[in-house]
């Protein structure tokens, strides 16, 4: 997060100003939304952009608040119409549900981020121990060739295992919803046997470029019972 202290004065650089506007406007609406939810107040906010467009937030809605203000009729319109009450009740229920859903998603997101961070730490620790876990770009030719051999061996074994399972299962599809490894379970947007990755190949973060350094001379300490580092 930025957390820089900036003077409260017009931002000199146009790009910076635009970016700041975007972020702060978004944050402002978020705060307004929270205020409405937490304290049950009604509000309207109008914001003109540097490009002279207008953003507005309103609860229950911008128009009604503006009208109420302009007519100086500060009393909320008397709730005569049953229909209006129904509309309001429905809207409030909706908002409650939305807030609940948002909270749920945000919690999940936080959990996943934490998981991501610990996985990252684990990887870093592993890379210190095992040379073959280093980013591919940092390995020497000899190491790469060795690694490739191992990888291809692994691939054979995976294929073997896959075939084994397939032949046992026959045509049954129920066996294909096996629990994912390491408790990574709830991916309801992924089909069973298609695997997690294959349905979304473009979504991957290429983790390969990391900053860990593998001194190349280590490769020559390989094997022969000398043990690793």
């Amino acid at each position, binding site marked *: 997060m930025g957390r820089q202290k900036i003077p409260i004065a*017009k931002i000199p650089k146009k790009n910076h*100003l635009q970016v700041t*506007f975007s972020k*702060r*406007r978004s944050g*402002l609406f*978020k*705060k307004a939304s929270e*205020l*409405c*939810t*937490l*304290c*049950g*107040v009604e509000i309207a*906010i*109008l914001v003109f952009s540097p490009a002279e467009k*207008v953003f*507005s*937030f309103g609860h*229950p809605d911008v128009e009604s608040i*503006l009208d109420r*203000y*302009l007519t100086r009729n500060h009393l909320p319109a008397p709730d005569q119409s049953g229909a209006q009450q129904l509309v309001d009740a429905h809207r409030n229920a909706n*908002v409650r549900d939305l807030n*609940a*859903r948002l*909270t749920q*998603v945000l919690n*999940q997101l936080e959990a996943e*981020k934490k998981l*991501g961070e610990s996985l990252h730490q684990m990887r870093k620790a592993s890379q210190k121990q095992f040379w*073959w876990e280093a980013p591919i770009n940092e390995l020497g*030719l000899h190491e*790469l060739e*060795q690694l*490739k051999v191992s990888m291809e061996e692994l691939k054979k*074994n*995976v*294929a073997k*295992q*896959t075939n084994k399972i397939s032949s046992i299962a026959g045509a049954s599809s129920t066996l*294909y919803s*096996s629990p994912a*490894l390491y408790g*990574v379970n709830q991916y309801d947007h992924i089909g*069973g046997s*298609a*695997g*997690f*990755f*294959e349905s*979304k190949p473009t*979504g991957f*973060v290429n983790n390969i470029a990391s900053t860990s350094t593998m001194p190349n*001379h280590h490769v*020559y300490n*390989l*094997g022969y*019972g000398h043990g690793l580092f």
Partner: protein
Amino acid sequence: MTRKKINLAYIANDSARKATFKKRKKGLLKKMSELSTLCAVQTCAIIYSPYDPEPEVWPSPLGVQSVIARFKSMPEAEQSRKMVNQESFLGQRIIKSEEQLKKQQIENREREMTQVMYRSLVGDQGVQNMGVADLNDLEWLVDKSVEEIDERIKSLREQIVPPPQVMTAGMSNSHVNSTDGGKYGTEATKNRAETEMDAYTPNQQSSMNQKVGFGLRNEDMAVYQNPQWLEELLRSNDQNMGGQLGKNEDIPFAFNGNNSSLWSFP
């Protein structure tokens, strides 16, 4: 600031709600003021609360009038284009957060699978216990890794000048000791481009040359200048098999269940 995690729901407790309202309203108006100043834009706010029959306005009644007037003077379409209420705003936030969540899940999945892949290289029995979906993912990841390795190998080979045979010729004629190794290293750097294939004699020297050839293809020039490396390499050659630096032996792919260590040798 307390930094408590807020529960996004109406605060039932009256005094807590009132206190929260005061604080947050103050904060909101401060943010509005900052936004206005930093970005040199017009803004206004109107707040109706149960605590006051009159609405609270910012920046001032006149300021609000002026902003509203400017707003109303815009075509309807422009007014509503970026207009949101609680429902639409929350909907947008949910969608954005769900996208971030999905991205993070995919990233985490790849990280986990990468670990599985590396563990499996060392003979971890995980593969036997995995379901088809995971196996497919693992296979995908292995394929991807092999692809990257191939590319990297290719690019390294392209960088390297054709095999410096001058090195092997030199090696085969001199005794192996550290000083020679060092000399050897520096000569290598100087003479890379030269070819003295004629001096090369395949037979008894072949294994040693081959080993050296291997090492020479490493891109890291610093290694060449390290006599210790060379000494160790050649010494270990003497100790073990006079034979070649068997590629396959370096990572015995221990998948038969007996060998769990990558580096176990008979």
